[in-house]
């Protein structure tokens, strides 16, 4: 795995192909949890964690089970069940190990199961780092970093939006634009701003 490719994945996933602003994955939790900064931070951490580990697990399953037994066409069902199970297990473990952490993250974990960002990144990993059912060189590490940085980009935008919406709550935005519409307009201009990174090369 070379550094250049790694940096491209990092910058690409955080800024250029940001999951919220450019790929439109995970918009429901983005709108649902971006009212305040504090929950946004918790949600962000949970998403980074789940996306990284889902990338690891689904990669292994795809490589060593689905390809081996010629079940590639079942990946949608397999992946969603695996992610749901993983999230459920994580929630149970956290609850047993650390109650404070569970209080902070607990309610967000189940929500993540239906977050299309998680399932989306695992599909993206498979689509970009497997060619004809064979992993490309460094495929595993690329997948993991893509999962991590996609989660990081998601969390960054979630956090920014939460801080902006906290401020917008104090302002008298036009009545019909309050709430979701103005959040979308803000996201739109944010997306324009992030276009400054397009065409990145090293």
């Amino acid at each position, binding site marked *: 795995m070379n550094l250049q490719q790694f940096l491209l994945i990092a910058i690409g996933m955080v800024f250029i192909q940001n999951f919220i*602003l*450019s*790929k*439109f*994955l*995970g*918009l*429901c939790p983005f*709108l649902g949890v971006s009212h305040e900064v504090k929950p946004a931070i918790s949600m962000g951490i949970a998403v980074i964690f789940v996306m990284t580990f889902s990338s690891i697990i689904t990669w292994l399953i795809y490589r060593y089970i689905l390809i081996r037994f010629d079940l590639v*066409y*079942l*990946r*949608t*069902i397999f992946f*969603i*069940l695996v992610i*749901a199970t993983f999230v459920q297990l994580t929630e149970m473990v956290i609850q047993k190990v650390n109650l404070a952490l569970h209080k902070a993250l607990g309610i967000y974990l189940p929500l993540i199961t*239906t*977050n*299309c960002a998680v*399932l*989306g990144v695992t*599909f*993206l990993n498979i*689509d970009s780092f497997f060619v004809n059912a064979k992993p490309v060189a460094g495929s595993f590490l690329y997948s993991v970093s893509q999962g991590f940085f996609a989660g990081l980009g998601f969390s960054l935008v979630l956090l920014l939006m939460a801080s902006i919406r906290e401020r917008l709550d104090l302002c008298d935005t*036009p*009545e*019909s*634009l309050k709430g*979701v*519409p*103005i*959040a*979308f*307009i803000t*996201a*739109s*201009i944010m*997306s*324009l701003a992030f*276009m400054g990174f397009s065409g990145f090369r090293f």
Partner: protein
Amino acid sequence: MERKRPLKEFLKGLFRENPVFVIILGLCPALAVSTSVENALGMGVAVTFVLLFSNLIISSLRRVIPEKIRIPCFIVVIASFVTITDLLMKGFFPLVSRGLGIFVPLIVVNCIIMGRAEAYASKNPIFLSVLDGLGMGLGFTLALVVISMVREVLGAGTFLGFLLAKGFRPLTVMILPSGALLTLGLLMGGINLIKKKR
């Protein structure tokens, strides 16, 4: 339970409870695949198909599925139909399928489908559930077509691929992600405005 009128159940998904504009569900595909009217129609049909059959199956199994593990059961049913749709589209409409990309398999986590399964199909008889699924699916399609129409006409100067006016310099931004967010934000604002006036 009061008797529900079938026609009303069907029509509510189209306007009064439109999944995208009013209940705010299923936004990810609504923004991602609305770059052209063609893509929007393809996505709308796929979602309507899955919604119709998942509502049908879940409603007919509603007395069999145990309460506690209903969510995993729903997921399995939905995922099966999504897989079928994905394979059918790849086989018969390879171009549309490629245009929609990972958003076809991602229908599985589309909140509209899970939402209707949980909120409607698991509690209502088969016939009404099918109508509900059809209405919601068509409502989703309608929303997608409206969004994609704005985006394609302004952003590319075309409608379903036909050039509308010569000499028009399209606002390229509208087919970019930023334009999708702007379109949806303004459309939602406009709908709020109309609702308030009434």
